[in-house]
């Protein structure tokens, strides 16, 4: 079998053909600088405005509240560091986040801690949920920002964002959410969900890599990370990635217009795999919540094994998946998310993430199950800890 079966759509996704076609003219044919005052500059400026409107429609905000960035990580850093630096002179040097955020948020927080800020890391329960009561109790008069992800990249848990946002509103604290995994996968409404700032990234919903968005509610002003020209309302300098922005707008529009259909397809494949694996592979367990989870996410632990073993075996069968999350593949630590939901280290080490996309098929889901049913017992047979458990 030479075909690749790509089940790592939470890491990145292929660019949709329709999106690619929409992007292509903006490289060589329409190449004007959007800041230039002549015809070919106006063309690219219009293209960016169109994408901005597409994003605004998807999030239920004003186009003037949409800022294009270089990636989701930049959006997170901007929201967090920009808010902290803006409010520090007013004595607000405390931030709140959760223990299961993406490293783009956690490491931005660590960096602020090194600069004298204080950060509260809210715990999560065994399903990965942050409690609005915990948040309420953690907010202080000097809290500058709360940042809680909309949906977790590893275990797929969807946080109660509207409730968390309501707590922040009530307390008058700015609320940012990293929606990188959620955008284009589940419905988002920044008004209804009480969100002040939101990060998203095009490559997670079949758009191009290297293009993100930070939504910033009118009236909120995180300090700029990039100063320079007057792009993005003087708040994010740098000549715009026009083709990327066009691709982001188109991809998000397509994802949102087919959201239910797409989710139903992903869910069907995921539920098939989860049910079959839990039934056929002893002691396999699903991480995260059964209902409030991203439609394409299956995070499954296989006690007795180390995840990389499974990853390599799957790769030899042409299947691309992930242990924990892709960002961790160079680290020996088990995932901070899996530890935060209370998994023992050795079980956290044996955890795989399968993430389904619109392009995946039932045949691929079946092939994944067949392959796992073959490789897991095979590798467990040489595992001393599985053997001791069974002895």
């Amino acid at each position: 079998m030479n075909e690749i079966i790509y089940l790592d759509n939470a890491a990145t996704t292929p660019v949709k053909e329709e999106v690619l076609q929409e992007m292509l003219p903006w490289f060589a044919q329409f190449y004007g600088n959007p800041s230039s005052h002549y015809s070919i500059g106006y063309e690219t400026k219009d293209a960016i405005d169109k994408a901005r409107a597409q994003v605004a429609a998807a999030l239920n905000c004003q186009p003037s509240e949409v800022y294009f960035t270089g990636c989701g990580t930049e959006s997170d850093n901007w929201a967090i560091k920009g808010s902290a630096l803006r409010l520090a002179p007013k004595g607000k040097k405390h931030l709140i986040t959760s223990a299961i955020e993406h490293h783009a948020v956690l490491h931005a927080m660590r960096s602020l801690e090194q600069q004298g800020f204080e950060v509260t890391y809210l715990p999560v329960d065994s399903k990965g949920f942050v409690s609005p009561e915990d948040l309420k109790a953690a907010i202080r008069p000097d809290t500058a920002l709360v940042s809680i992800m909309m949906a977790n990249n590893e275990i797929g848990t969807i946080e109660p964002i509207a409730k968390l946002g309501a707590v922040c509103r009530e307390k008058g604290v700015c609320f940012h959410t990293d929606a990188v995994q959620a955008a284009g996968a589940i419905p988002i409404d920044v008004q209804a969900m009480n969100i002040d700032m939101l990060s998203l990234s095009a490559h997670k919903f079949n758009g191009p890599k290297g293009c993100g968005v930070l939504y910033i509610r009118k009236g909120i002003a995180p300090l700029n990370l990039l100063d320079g020209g007057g792009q993005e309302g003087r708040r994010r300098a740098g000549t715009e990635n026009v083709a990327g922005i066009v691709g982001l707008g188109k991809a998000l529009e397509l994802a949102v217009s087919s959201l239910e259909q797409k989710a139903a397809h992903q869910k069907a494949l995921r539920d098939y795999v989860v049910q079959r694996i839990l039934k056929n592979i002893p002691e396999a367990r699903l991480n995260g919540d059964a209902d409030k989870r991203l439609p394409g996410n299956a995070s499954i632990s296989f006690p007795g094994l180390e995840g990389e073993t499974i990853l390599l075996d799957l790769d030899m069968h042409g299947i691309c998946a992930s242990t924990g999350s892709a960002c961790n593949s160079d680290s020996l630590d088990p995932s901070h998310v899996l530890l935060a939901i209370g998994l023992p280290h050795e079980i956290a080490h044996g955890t795989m993430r399968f993430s389904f996309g619109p392009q995946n098929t039932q045949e691929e889901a079946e092939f994944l199950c067949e392959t796992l049913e073959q490789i897991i017992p095979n590798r467990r047979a040489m595992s001393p800890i599985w053997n001791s458990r069974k002895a």
Partner: protein
Amino acid sequence: MAMYSAKVMDHFAHPRNVGELEDANGVGEVGNAKCGDIMRMYLKVENNVITDVRFMTFGCGAAIATSSMATELIKGKSLDEALKLTNKAVVEALDGLPPVKVHCSVLAEQAIKAAIADYYTRLGIDPEPIVGKLADDAHDHDHHCSSCEGGCSCDH
């Protein structure tokens, strides 16, 4: 570029000498589940020669490949020769390992030493003068794994 050499992948996909050895007269186990790798080495020693060897490993691809390679390197060798096996020799035989995985080769070396020490202990001989002081465990520390930057005990 792939993370592992073709040799590592060969030993991972087709591990040599895998399983338990019922008539082993030396068994050593190193590593810990918390850090994500445990190696158990079984030796059958006759007239000071390792006539048979098996391993059981919980761990990553490199842990399995280094275990497998280490068993090949000591099978048929005298105990003295086996004790001279270094983690470097295992790494070289595998055409290299990513830096973050070098600790696996240290575990393999220690698993062999632990098994030989067990062999001597069973004979009523103090293994320490022969095998040297065994690090309790390449990973036996309370720190989070990141604290050793993947180099657990390599520079001990």
